[in-house]
């Protein structure tokens, strides 16, 4: 059947296509579709008038409602801050000891602190705050720079070996790499540490070698930062080497690696990223994890 011919049964035009004797009627577009097109076109015209829409060279039509995404989000953030002001103001005003005495504030600190910790701290320190090799556990009593909330808040503000101008700074020298001590001396120091630290029960034959020399070498090389008794110094960020908390590992290989290659951990500073109130919440949250002793100095 050719173009323009009519189907004998319905009397309608056909498209002129034929497949094995089957032909297609050239029906009109259904009214519902036309109606839908008209409605959506009208909607878009109304939308153009109300919302930012048409480009006009270097500018554009701003729309009667004056809606601007940036202003909208700014307003939403401000409104949310205003809703939270009831307790954020309290946290900002009170000192750490007073906050910990207020159960209704502590409930918020735990809830808000958990979210803040998850978003910002958990990547390095772990969701359970127990740390990872090279990233200290916050869930124990061992603190590099001090574990009272004020100190933790300050660490959060300036970071450790960070890009902040006031950053806490600590660097353990590379005794082996820089040729300060030879291999035997390093091995002796490690033997001394492993024999004296708490909780090391895998002492091997190598650990009995050079303990005495190690003590002497420790006093000469390590005590300046880690203290004569090896208990560390939070003022310098020098870890306690006699407790059972280990940043990298307490095995011989890890310790020899640390003494020969040196260590310099990095913690970013959070002054630009988190508000003072947020850092305060985190400081209390973290110290509470560490032993429920927020407000009490270590």
């Amino acid at each position, binding site marked *: 059947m050719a173009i323009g011919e009519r189907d004998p049964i319905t009397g309608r035009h056909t498209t002129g296509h034929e497949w094995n004797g089957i032909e297609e009627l050239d029906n009109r577009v259904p009214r519902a579709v036309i109606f839908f097109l008209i409605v959506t076109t009208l909607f878009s015209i109304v939308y153009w008038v109300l919302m930012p829409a048409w480009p006009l060279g270097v500018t554009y039509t701003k729309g009667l409602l004056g809606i*601007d995404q*940036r202003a909208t989000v700014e307003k939403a953030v401000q409104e949310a801050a205003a809703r939270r002001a009831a307790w954020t103001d309290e946290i900002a005003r009170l000192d750490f000891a007073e906050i910990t005495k207020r159960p209704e504030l502590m409930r918020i600190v735990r809830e808000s602190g958990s979210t803040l910790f998850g978003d910002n701290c958990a990547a*390095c320190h772990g969701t359970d705050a127990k740390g990872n090799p090279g990233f200290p556990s916050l869930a124990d009593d061992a603190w590099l720079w001090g574990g009272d909330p004020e100190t933790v808040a300050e660490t959060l503000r300036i970071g450790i070996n960070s890009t902040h101008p006031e950053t806490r700074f600590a660097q353990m020298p590379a005794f082996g790499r820089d040729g300060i001590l030879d291999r035997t001396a390093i091995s002796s120091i490690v033997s001394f540490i492993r024999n004296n630290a708490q909780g090391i029960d895998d002492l091997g034959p190598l650990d009995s070698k050079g303990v005495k020399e190690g003590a002497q070498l420790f006093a000469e090389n390590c005590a300046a930062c880690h203290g004569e008794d090896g208990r560390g110094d939070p003022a310098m960020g020098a870890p306690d080497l006699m407790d059972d908390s280990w940043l990298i590992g307490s095995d011989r290989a890890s310790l020899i690696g640390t003494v020969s290659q040196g260590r310099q951990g*990095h913690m970013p500073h959070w002054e630009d990223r988190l508000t003072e109130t947020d850092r305060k919440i985190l400081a209390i949250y973290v110290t509470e994890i560490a032993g429920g002793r927020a407000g009490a100095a270590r």
Partner: protein
Amino acid sequence: MPEAHRKLERSTIGFVLAIVVVASIGGLVEIAPLFTIDETVEEVEDMRVYTPLELAGRNIYIREGCYACHSQMIRTLRDEVERYGPYSLAVESQYDHPMLWGSKRTGPDLARVGGKYSDEWHVAHLVDPRAVVPESKMPAYAWLQRNTLKTDDLPDHLMAMLRVGVPYRDAMIENAARDAFAQAYPDSDMAEGVAERYGEDTNIRAFDGDPGRLTEMDALVAYLQIVGQLTDAAHEKRTGEQVVRAEETE
């Protein structure tokens, strides 16, 4: 009208051309004019270009398909601003060719990841994500630590960026390979040249922990640490001008 359409749809070439015209209307009307509107890309003074090492890292980011799971676009929504930081501005991607905004987040948005974590963390996390984040489903990229970074083509990469409008200077292009090496070797004599050419705030560190060897890990971590840090415009807008604009509209 139906007659005209009947004719058109029976002409193959004519109908293809008509489809092309209709399909491009959306782009022409909605996208093309944005290039002429002054407000589209904000003008900021502190915007800096990627160093050769960061650019190489960006190429690795693209090669490994990081953009498939990580967006670099904080939208103007309260929950995003409160979680990630100030919403993204167009100017922050001014020198991104191609841009890596992405549209899907299997992992978190990375637009403000620069400076958020330490280099050590990035290295540990890329070598074995589950070693530091047990619940992560990110693949490991341990070979980046072993692969030596290819630097001999870096001048060409900078040249290509220059062709599409990134203001690299001749000295930057000439020293591209050397600067890439020096940025990850802070104690070398060449490191000063990097700070001189790209600014004092440039991160010059042994990103992968080994200053003597330039690896793909160095490049990728250098790039990740600069994402969102090329300009402070987004932070300024949030604290200054934007607040004023918000008040005006009220």
